[in-house]
């Protein structure tokens, strides 16, 4: 008899809330971060509505400040950072390397509880009045002057940070020790490589953010501190500590997406990945270089010009491993047998949007141009191309790629393709006008603006509405597929990789026998295939 799949192996509440099964924990994360995504999206919606008109009709400055803080904090710390690692990484990583579970299953569950506890504090801070510092918490505003719930919010982010740290630690130990026999480092799927690189940032960066927020909270509580210049402190010190984590945090968001894309492209081009070693190495290179570029957020903050020059140089260097990836994906597509299924459309969208985000990043890495567009909508547009156009497209691509594995059901590919296209169009209409607005000089974080910016703002708000619809469609057809979707076989995409060798959904132990690996990944031969 076939063993029960993980979804049916225990149906009590405690079999979910006390589970140590990485697959169930992945699903717990899926529900939690989807919840936070819509909270952050709600704040964005209100902001875009406010910006329809030049004057403040819907909200005034104070509320607007709280809205963009709520949007930033929720999306960065409670959606983007845990998105792919904690949902897809948790679910797929052990399956990909032929393991039963993570190295430390109980710590994995603890990570989720820490995440929820952090989310509870963050939500409390928002409900009890909100925070108006922006997600960047710049001192001394955050540490002295702001009259909002800064400490509650900081506590939430600190606790959620420990969730990141334990997740990273678990991934590293799992990848090192639990690979199936024969699965050498050079045979690892590229998604595993990208999770490894991401984990390095989790464990090296997060503690520094934790400590800088602790120092902010202490300075607020006791009125003594190292950031407030009136007390002999230095606000730039906070910016250095904050960006030492928060710049690499962008790579926490984008690296896993790149890993997902590296899985999807060869599968739907039916071709081996081009330049496997370079793609794997470039993930590590991005993770390491990412720690040397934080000062590019501070070009106009008053740091030394010479520091600025070095940070500028290193920021340009990040383009090399990023470009290596893009060219390798394109080379993989070249002469491939391309199937435009839903995951593939998301992956192709990722390549285009990430490229725009990356190239505008190079413009910002140039000292002179950055002085012109610093703190304008150009910056907003740039990092949304990376964090939404890149990271979220990759996340949705991954959800659609592994959905049959996770649920055992196939969704409607037609509606999948519709949603991918709607998201792509809505995204560009939202954020491309913001490049123009920023270049024309519209500053970020203001609830009102001069009337000549209205046309572009209306376009952007219209785009945001389309984007919102694009994000809602998958909720409908994915939920529908749970009951009415056709049953998926073990390998609906005829993909390579160990996760496709076990049942969909997998049994609790993942594999009925330990898999043996005798070859590298992505053994696609350009064959014609019929998907399930």
């Amino acid at each position, binding site marked *: 008899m076939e063993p029960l799949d993980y979804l049916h192996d225990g149906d009590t509440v405690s079999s979910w809330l006390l589970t140590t099964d990485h697959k169930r924990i992945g699903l717990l994360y899926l529900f939690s971060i989807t919840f936070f995504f819509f909270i952050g999206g709600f704040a964005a919606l209100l902001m875009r509505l406010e910006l329809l008109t030049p004057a403040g009709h819907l909200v005034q400055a104070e509320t607007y400040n709280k809205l963009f803080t709520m949007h930033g904090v929720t999306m960065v710390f409670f959606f983007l950072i845990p998105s792919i690692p904690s949902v897809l990484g948790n679910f797929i990583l*052990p399956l990909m390397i032929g*393991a*039963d*579970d*993570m*190295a*430390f*299953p109980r710590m994995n569950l603890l990570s989720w509880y820490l995440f929820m506890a952090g989310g509870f504090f963050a939500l409390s801070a928002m409900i009890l009045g909100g925070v108006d510092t922006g997600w960047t918490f710049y001192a001394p505003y955050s540490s002295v002057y702001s009259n909002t719930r800064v400490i509650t919010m900081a506590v939430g982010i600190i606790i959620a940070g420990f969730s990141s*740290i334990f997740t*990273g*630690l*678990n991934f*590293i*130990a*799992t990848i*090192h*020790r*639990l690979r199936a026999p024969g699965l050498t480092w050079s045979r690892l799927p590229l998604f595993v490589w990208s999770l490894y690189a991401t984990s390095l940032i989790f*464990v*090296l*960066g*997060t*503690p*520094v953010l*934790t*400590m*800088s927020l602790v*120092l902010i909270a*202490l300075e607020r509580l*006791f*009125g*003594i*501190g*190292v950031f407030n210049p009136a*007390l*002999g*402190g*230095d606000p730039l*010190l906070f910016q*250095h*500590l904050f960006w*030492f984590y928060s710049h690499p945090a962008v790579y926490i968001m984008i690296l896993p997406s790149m890993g997902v894309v590296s899985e999807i492209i060869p599968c739907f081009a039916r071709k081996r990945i081009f330049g496997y070693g370079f793609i794997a190495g470039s993930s590590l290179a991005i993770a390491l270089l990412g720690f040397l570029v934080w000062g590019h957020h501070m070009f106009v903050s008053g740091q030394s010009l010479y520091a600025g020059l070095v940070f500028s140089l290193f920021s340009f260097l990040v383009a090399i491993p990023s470009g290596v990836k893009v060219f390798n994906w394109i080379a993989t597509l070249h002469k491939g047998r391309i199937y435009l299924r839903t995951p593939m459309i998301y992956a192709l969208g990722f390549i285009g949007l990430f490229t725009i985000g990356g190239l505008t990043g190079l413009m910002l890495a140039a000292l002179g141009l950055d002085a012109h567009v610093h703190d304008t909508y150009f910056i907003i547009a740039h990092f949304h191309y990376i964090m939404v156009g890149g990271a979220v497209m990759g996340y949705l691509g991954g959800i659609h790629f592994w959905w049959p594995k996770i649920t055992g059901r196939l969704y409607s590919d037609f509606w999948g393709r519709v949603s991918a296209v709607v998201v792509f169009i809505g995204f560009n209409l939202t954020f491309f006008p913001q490049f123009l607005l920023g270049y024309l000089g519209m500053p970020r974080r203001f609830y009102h603006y001069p009337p000549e910016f209205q046309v572009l703002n209306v376009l952007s708000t219209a785009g945001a509405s389309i984007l919102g619809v694009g994000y809602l469609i998958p909720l409908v057809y994915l939920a529908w597929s749970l009951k009415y979707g056709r049953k998926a076989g073990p390998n609906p995409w005829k993909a390579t990789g160990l996760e496709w060798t076990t049942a969909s959904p997998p049994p609790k*132990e993942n594999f009925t026998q*330990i898999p043996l690996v005798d070859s590298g990944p992505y053994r696609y031969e350009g064959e014609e295939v019929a998907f399930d």
Partner: protein
Amino acid sequence: MTDASAASPPFTDREQQREAARIGMWVFLTTEVMFFGALFLVYFYDQHIFHDAFASAGGRTDLGLGAGNTAVLLLSSLTMALAVRAAKQGRDRALFGRLLLTMILGSAFLALKGLEYARHIHEGLLPGASFVYEPAALARPAELFFYLYFVMTGLHAVHMLVGLAWLAVLAVRARGADGRVDLGTPAEVAGLYWHFIDVVWIFLFPMFYLVRGH
């Protein structure tokens, strides 16, 4: 978890499980380095800017107590290393005794540290409204020095408390062990943590006690 015969899931053999525990602990210590690292950066930055004030304030900490405490902590690392050795040899009674000794030394460190804190507070060196410092011209940066002193040694003391609790759990397990349970890896991992706290103190000691004016 520590049944001598079989590995617990998801591991397939004992050595794999031991290796994972070791890797996990080393990665955790890396995060600790970054955690303290942020504070070290703040200290060295301020020490660079307020060089004279830090030298003056450094003269107000108790070098004798600090040095004594350093010796106590180093000694506890020795007894901890011996405890790990006993655990690997399967000598549970020796393990128990050495853990107890380590905990006594760790507690002595915390007691001496508490004594120092009490004295500093009595002398008005606790940063905040009651902070008093002569010469008054250096009071602001000297307050920063003592702020960092309390934050960093306080964080270190919190780590000591966690370490003591950890060793207590291990000691209870060693007491109840009857030779069938392998405590080698749990002891080794706890030992790594204990030595790490020791190493942090080796850096804190010169920063707060040996940086003093002449």
